[in-house]
């Protein structure tokens, strides 16, 4: 049984007859101890889908799903209190902007021990010791004196380390990292990713790594989910996705990497932008930007095809040579 099972999850914003679907019938699963990378451009629904797993979608957002199970428990039908007991303890999340994700009014100690206090209780002394231990684990030097620090006294990398310490405080089974390195310097990025992967192996956590950094995913993830305009367009083992992409969007993403344009004058790019709330195409979401789009792609919505290991949402998936199947 998978640790996390997401079955046709949709997140809609707004009431009325035409709410905006930020996440459109997404299905995937995460096994215990597995690293899953979710990639896609900005606005493709990566963050929103993970926020909905955390139960952090607020009005006017609505979460719908045929199934959303974590560790065998149905997240959507369970009482709110029980769900809160899971959130922050068994499922934890770290965010994109570490500097603004910490509360400026409270010390590092307060913010780390708070999660412990809510979910595990224990004496104040125990929580303090645990906080020091956690700061050590995330590689913060001189943790005892850092406990008294306020967020504005920390650098971006330090803040993200504190965020990670907070997230792993209750030994979560699943950690969702929403673009954990986007706001950081390149050198710090590598350190943070190494730290995350190290902790993941050590604790055998499931890790969902949301990013638009394809190199990072190639290096870290066991499996990759490619999202576009709120839909999953391709899933599969990381190596296969990178060696033989089957969806034109995945192919375009890979071609836009500087590495694949070596010796050329210009970088390859996929023209256009992700469709927003008011310019959704009728057929395939990618049709207006897809170099292979046929008339059928403009009209009809393609369904997901393939086995559970490798799925693609396209009428004419690409073959091994990167050409659309006839």
């Amino acid at each position, binding site marked *: 049984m998978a640790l996390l099972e997401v079955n046709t999850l949709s997140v809609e914003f707004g009431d009325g007859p035409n709410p905006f679907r930020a996440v459109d019938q997404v299905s995937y699963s995460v096994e215990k101890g597995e690293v899953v990378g979710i990639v896609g451009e900005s606005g493709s629904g990566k963050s929103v889908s993970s926020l909905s797993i*955390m139960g*952090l979608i607020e009005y006017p957002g609505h979460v719908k799903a045929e199934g959303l199970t974590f560790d065998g428990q149905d997240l959507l039908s369970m009482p709110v209190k029980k769900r*809160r*007991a*899971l*959130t*922050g*303890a068994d499922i*934890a*999340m770290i*965010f994109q*902007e570490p500097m*603004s*994700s*910490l*509360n*400026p*009014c*409270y010390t590092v100690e307060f913010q780390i021990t*708070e*999660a412990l206090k*809510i*979910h595990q209780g224990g004496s104040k002394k125990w929580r303090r010791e645990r906080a020091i231990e956690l700061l050590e684990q995330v590689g913060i030097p001189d943790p005892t004196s850092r406990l008294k620090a*306020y967020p*504005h*006294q920390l650098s971006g990398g330090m803040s993200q380390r504190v*965020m990670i310490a*907070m997230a792993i405080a209750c030994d979560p089974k699943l950690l969702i990292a929403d673009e954990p390195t986007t706001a950081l310097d390149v050198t710090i990025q590598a350190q943070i990713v190494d730290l995350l992967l190290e902790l993941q192996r050590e604790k055998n956590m499931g890790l969902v790594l949301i990013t638009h950094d394809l190199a990072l995913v190639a290096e870290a993830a066991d499996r990759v989910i490619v999202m576009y305009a709120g839909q999953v367009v391709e899933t599969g083992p990381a190596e296969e996705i990178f060696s033989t992409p089957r969806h034109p969007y995945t192919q375009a993403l890979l071609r836009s990497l500087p590495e694949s344009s070596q010796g050329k004058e210009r970088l390859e790019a996929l023209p256009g932008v992700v469709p927003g709330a008011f310019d959704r195409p009728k057929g395939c979401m990618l049709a207006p930007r897809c170099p292979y789009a046929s008339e059928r792609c403009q009209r009809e919505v393609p369904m997901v095809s393939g086995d559970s290991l490798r799925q693609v949402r396209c009428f004419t998936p690409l073959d091994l040579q990167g050409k659309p199947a006839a």
Partner: protein
Amino acid sequence: MFQFIFKKLMLVVPTFIGITLLTFTLIRLIPGDPIEVMAGERGVSPERHAQLRAELGLDQPLLIQYKDYVVNIFHGDLGKSLITKTPVMEEFASLFPATVELATCAALFAVLVGLPAGIIAAVKRGSIFDHSVMTFSLTGYSMPIFWWALLLMLVFSVNLGWTPVSGRLDVTYWIDEVTGFMLIDTLLSGEEGAFASALHHLVLPSIVLGTIPMAVIARMTRSSMLEVLSEDYIRTARSKGMAPLRVIVVHALRNALIPVITVIGLQVGILLSGAILTETIFAWPGIGKWLIESIARRDYPVVQGGIMMVATIIIVVNLIVDILYGVVNPRIRHNK
């Protein structure tokens, strides 16, 4: 910290010079002088008038008068009332508790109603409660104090008879003045019903005086709270799985209070200036009523000294607010 306070105090010097100049000139620009006012309709002969002016020191050139005034201030002397001949300081001290009592109750009303109203309006934004709070606070803010006072008086004192019309205490009680605060004095006196009577008398003036600050605090709290609630760290707090109430009280409110505290501090000025109208309407024997009466009597030293004292209080309160600000906001504390 010391440096911070010192810097703030240095900024106060030009303010005080401005206050002395303004009060000194403005009160003398009003036609008539204290002697004419005292003489009333009977009038006074020119010889007697000149003699009295000399006695009061009003025959000196203005510059000399101003110099004497400022020199006396440096000696801690605000002069004597031209009418009652008691030192301004003494009169101020005896009337000040009444104003403080009223202003404190008004501030309590403003904070205790305005703060929760603003918080709930922000959390339940777009709800009927939110809209009513915003409408009510806009109305309260725009309402002229004197009209609002008369309206409340008419409804609650005259028609419903729930509250007394004016004064601090029923005439049936005679209370020894110990602290000058009626609520405390009536409690100390042990006289039955006196405390209730004092409280009764405080209700309407406090509401009238507290309405504008309440409206300002409610609106400020709401907008500050709305801003904070959309911050990333609120999402972090929620991702820890804590109860929504804890997110609001522990994580949002503390941050939202930072600008609200400044605004509450600024309300002290509004409370003291509003007290002038409120005290006059409710016949409340405090600083406001005293100042209005002394202007009518052209009691120059009282007007000058009284305004000086009020200004000092406002400046001191703002200084305290600046210091408090650092207590709530760690970023300021460490940047000193």
